[in-house]
């Protein structure tokens, strides 16, 4: 299963990426520009998000389409914008189709599982586990279908991209690779990453040209070093502070820990028992390292694989920086979540004023507190609901502005095509009519990102 065969492949033997010198001239390949300002995206996201709230969520299909159009057109390989042609109506239709199919699955199957679970096992746990397990293959299936839809609706220089059918094959492989990964305690994770990417890439077309993922899975181990080092650091810290040279002097006997912790809560001091507690700072360091390692692996493995993607006479190169991506993630998520948390805190205060009688918070009549408190109940509930949705909207808008936008920009600017000699030989491919669009992904709520 590790080597998917390429039918219709133009190559007799497996091709390998060439070492092509990069330059600016046409004979030296092309770069990818990224145009478009953060401010413009912010307003587009805000406007479409606002409509989404007004329409109780139905505009989200239009919102997604418009944001994608914007992002796609901002990415310009060789100076010419990509084009996204997804149709919101098509997406809405796909959502309805998925709902029709999934309601029966989810409703009836859940009910039967619950029944069996309680009849046979006297507990709901089995039912929940099975119900969840039943959705996993659907989840992978939906992801592949969504990718197929997006590629089928993406064009560059008027030529369509495409992905061959094969969603169930993808789901089966994904589940098998996950199983193998879990059984080997994650050691074979890079194998899963590589083989799933290869499955998708080898079925991807640009016009008449089929792409090919070359390379092998052990090459992805290069991307795992920050994660592995952090894991070693965490394990080492745990051994050092708990067993080798315990931070709490008397913790050789575990039963003593709880009385000591209780002492601290009662206001007693534990200082006498600490042995160089500054070593505990290694824990947050190691945990942040793990987070960094996870992001680094995800994106650097993408970079390595991109450098091994080929088309006939076309070659890709990526100079993506794992550190830069981590920086974008951390800063962007911090901004987005900070606004969400602050918003929700303000909301809670407002709710207390409205329902709890804010008298103990503010003096009578101050800032119109009694006016708020005296609103009819339905009105105050409605107001709170609108505010709640607004904060989620702001989170989405900020996430787009400070995470998706810089990520896309960084990805675009670090990608290049060092060899493009094969481009003139490519011609258009037929349209992939795809009634259900990404309906399953939408219904199963996979569309968190763009």
């Amino acid at each position, binding site marked *: 299963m590790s080597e998917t065969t390429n039918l219709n492949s133009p190559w007799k033997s497996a091709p390998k990426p060439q070492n092509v010198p990069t330059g600016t001239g046409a004979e030296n390949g092309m770069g990818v520009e990224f*145009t*478009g300002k953060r401010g*413009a*995206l912010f307003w*587009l996201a805000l406007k479409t998000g606002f409509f989404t709230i007004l329409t109780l*969520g139905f505009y989200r299909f239009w919102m997604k389409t*418009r*944001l994608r*159009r*914007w*992002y796609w*057109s*901002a990415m310009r390989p*060789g*100076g*010419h*914008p990509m*084009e996204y042609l997804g149709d919101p*109506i*098509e997406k*809405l*239709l796909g*959502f*309805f*189709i998925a*709902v*029709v199919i*999934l*309601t029966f699955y*989810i*409703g*009836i199957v*859940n*009910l*039967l599982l*619950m*029944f069996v679970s*309680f*009849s*046979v096992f*006297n*507990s*709901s746990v089995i*039912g929940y586990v099975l*119900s969840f397990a039943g959705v996993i293959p659907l989840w992978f299936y939906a992801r592949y279908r969504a990718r197929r839809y997006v590629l089928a609706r993406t064009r560059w*220089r*008027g*030529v369509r991209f495409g992905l061959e059918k094969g969603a169930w094959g993808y789901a089966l492989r994904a589940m098998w690779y996950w199983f193998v990964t879990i059984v080997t305690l994650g050691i074979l994770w890079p194998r899963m990453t590589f083989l799933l990417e290869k499955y998708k890439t080898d079925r991807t077309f*640009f*016009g008449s040209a089929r792409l090919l993922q070359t390379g092998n899975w052990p090459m992805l181990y290069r991307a795992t070093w920050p994660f592995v080092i952090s894991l070693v650091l965490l394990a080492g810290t745990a051994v050092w502070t708990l067993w080798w040279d315990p931070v709490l002097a008397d913790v050789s006997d575990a039963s003593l820990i709880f009385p000591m912790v209780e002492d601290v809560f009662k206001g007693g001091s534990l200082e006498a028992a600490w042995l160089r507690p500054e070593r505990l700072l290694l824990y947050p360091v190691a945990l942040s390292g793990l987070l960094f390692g996870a992001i680094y692996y995800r994106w650097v493995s993408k970079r390595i694989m991109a450098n091994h993607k080929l088309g006939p006479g076309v070659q890709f190169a990526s100079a993506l920086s794992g550190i830069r991506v981590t920086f974008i993630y951390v800063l962007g998520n911090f901004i987005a979540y900070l606004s969400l948390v602050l918003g929700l805190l303000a909301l809670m205060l407002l709710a207390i004023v409205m329902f709890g009688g804010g008298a103990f918070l503010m003096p009578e009549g101050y800032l119109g507190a009694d006016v708020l408190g005296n609103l009819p109940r339905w009105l105050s509930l409605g107001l709170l609901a609108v505010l709640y949705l607004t904060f*989620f909207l702001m989170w989405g808008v900020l996430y787009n502005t400070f995470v998706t936008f810089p990520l896309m920009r960084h990805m675009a600017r670090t990608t290049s095509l060092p060899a493009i000699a094969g*481009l*003139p030989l*490519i*011609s*258009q491919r037929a349209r992939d009519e795809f009634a259900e669009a990404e309906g399953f992904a*939408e*219904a*199963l*709520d996979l569309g968190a990102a763009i």
Partner: protein
Amino acid sequence: MSLGFDGFGSAYFDGDSPEPQEVSLHIAAGMLQIGLDDGVTLRWPVEEVRQLPDLAGKSGTVLRRTIDPLARLYVTDKTLLRHLPHLTRRAPPKGRGRLAAWAVAAVGAVAVQIFVLVPLLADNLAGFIPPEGERALGEATFGQIREALDETGLNPLEICEGADGIAAIDALVTRLSAERDFSRDVTVSVLDHKMINAFALPGGFVVLFRGLIDAAEGPDEVAAVLAHEIGHVVSSDPTRHALRSAGSIGVLGLLFGDFAGGAAVLFLTERLISAQYSQAAETGADEFAHGVLAQAGINPGALGDMFASMKAKHGDAEGVVAHFLSHPSLGQRIAASQAMVDEDIEYTPSMSDEEWTAIQQICE
């Protein structure tokens, strides 16, 4: 008159090859004339030219012709755009009929599911769950409800455990039970919460809220509510209801997407507590309560009295709303209850004053 535009950096894509072709751009006689290097000149009527929407960046824009889904013209000279009158006009809608059909199908599927299939299946399956399974289901949902109702977010809501009060309730259940002998199948708990409500769960759990005991004007009213909830237990309404919810919640979660994970759980709790059974189930439980009360020599009108005080406090939902709430409207139920009162019989109170005091203080 012919207008010329700067074609530098502009490109034409014929929709077949990803090779840009250099162009010269003119507008003459209502036509956008696109001159290609091989001498061919394409003529696009200006009113058929559209601009791609939501384009990022200010440098360059992409044009297309309405009747050609593939060819694209990338232009850098934006002065051209002023001469194209219908740049942003939309294409006529297509496929709306199919969309409407699937929308109706989706709504229909959800409705059939929630109102027909799930209830049908639940009603048929409820009879087959063994008692231990029912008990486990009840315990699980009781735990969830106690956690959901807790306002501090730390511990599940307290069950009141005043020993005398519990003894009084047990005595009451035994008295109501008489020959029907359901007292072993029923577990009554009081929750320390101010809500004026009571509900039944699968496996014979009957739960009263302290608020209901506080609001009652005498022990008979509490006994009547208890008898009503036991009526639900005996006909295993809560089991059906729990199975129905398990089926419906997944569907609703599917529809609402993003924030609905939490909302679905809240909704489930809400449904279980307010226990909106079918009208038939409510009427059945009322009749059961009347029978049990009368048999135990307690005034069956007490159920009506309880409803009357609820009505005085919360009003009544009549008409369409009442139908959706699926409770037969309170007025009818009060009347039905009062019709059961037999003037010739001397009813005895459901419990002694000491027992009533013990129940009132069960949470202290």
